[in-house]
């Protein structure tokens, strides 16, 4: 299950993680985000223990959204060792996310 991150816990959960982290920036009114959501859930299950999969609602976490200059959603940021290692903007097939994540696990 993808973990909810927000302005309050982002630094602790994402930046301080010892594993690669995916952050799926989304909002309720965003159609393409709905298409990406099930893919993120699948990845969350498949990579349990190897990578941390999280979601961030931009409407309730404006601080985090602004910090990373999120302009379009869905934006999926890939973090490693507290830094952005990769990024995907827009709805794309699962394989794109998986390839990016696997690259960080090498």
């Amino acid at each position, binding site marked *: 299950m993808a973990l909810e991150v927000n302005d309050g816990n982002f630094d602790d959960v994402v930046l301080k993680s010892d594993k690669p982290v995916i952050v799926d920036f989304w*909002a309720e*009114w*965003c*159609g*393409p*985000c*709905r*298409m990406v959501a099930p893919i993120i859930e699948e990845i969350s299950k498949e990579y349990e223990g190897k990578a941390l999969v999280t979601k961030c609602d*931009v409407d309730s976490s404006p601080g985090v*959204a602004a910090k990373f200059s*999120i*302009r*379009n*959603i*869905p934006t999926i940021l890939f973090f490693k060792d507290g830094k952005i290692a990769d990024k995907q*903007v*827009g*709805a*794309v097939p699962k394989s794109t996310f998986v390839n990016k994540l696997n690259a960080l696990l090498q």
Partner: protein
Amino acid sequence: MAFSTQLMKVCVFAASSSRIDKEYAIAASKLGFLLADAGVEVVYGGGGIGLMGKLADAVLENGGRITGVIPSFMKDAGWGHRGVKEMIITRDMGERKKNMFSMSEAVIALPGGVGTLEELTEAITLKQLSLFSGPIIILNTLGFYKSLIEFLDNMVDGNFLRLEHKGIWEVVNTPEEVISALNNKERGNEEWRKIAKI
């Protein structure tokens, strides 16, 4: 006959009123003829009167396939088209619309009253939420939909609707343009399907 529309299932929403300008009926009949010719399978509200009736008559006369989806209370009141053999009877209006959307790959709205308006705007809403995909084509016979189009522009101006979501529907003026729109795979800017701007 264009190959890409063959066997495409298309939902048509239209007026039940028969008291309207005959230009609307002429366009509805023409559309029915063209849809049958294009091999499109039509799904519609099952009515025997108004533009629904005209459309169904034209599809049947030209050997096309048409399925009516009608709530039982309308069928019991005798509102169903007598000539449409494939008729799905639903419990209520909600189930009717749900069936029509799940059966269809595209939506066409002809001029109509509040029923048609409600069905058209539900189609737009579902597509915005990515719960329906496929073209939504508004046949603007005699400029009928002019004020709705202006109203939708007002929604964009007031930020009630995103500009990029205007790509959800397409307005055409003739039945021939409806068929072109159904055939058209390159459908303008559909970036809004992949990305939403904050």
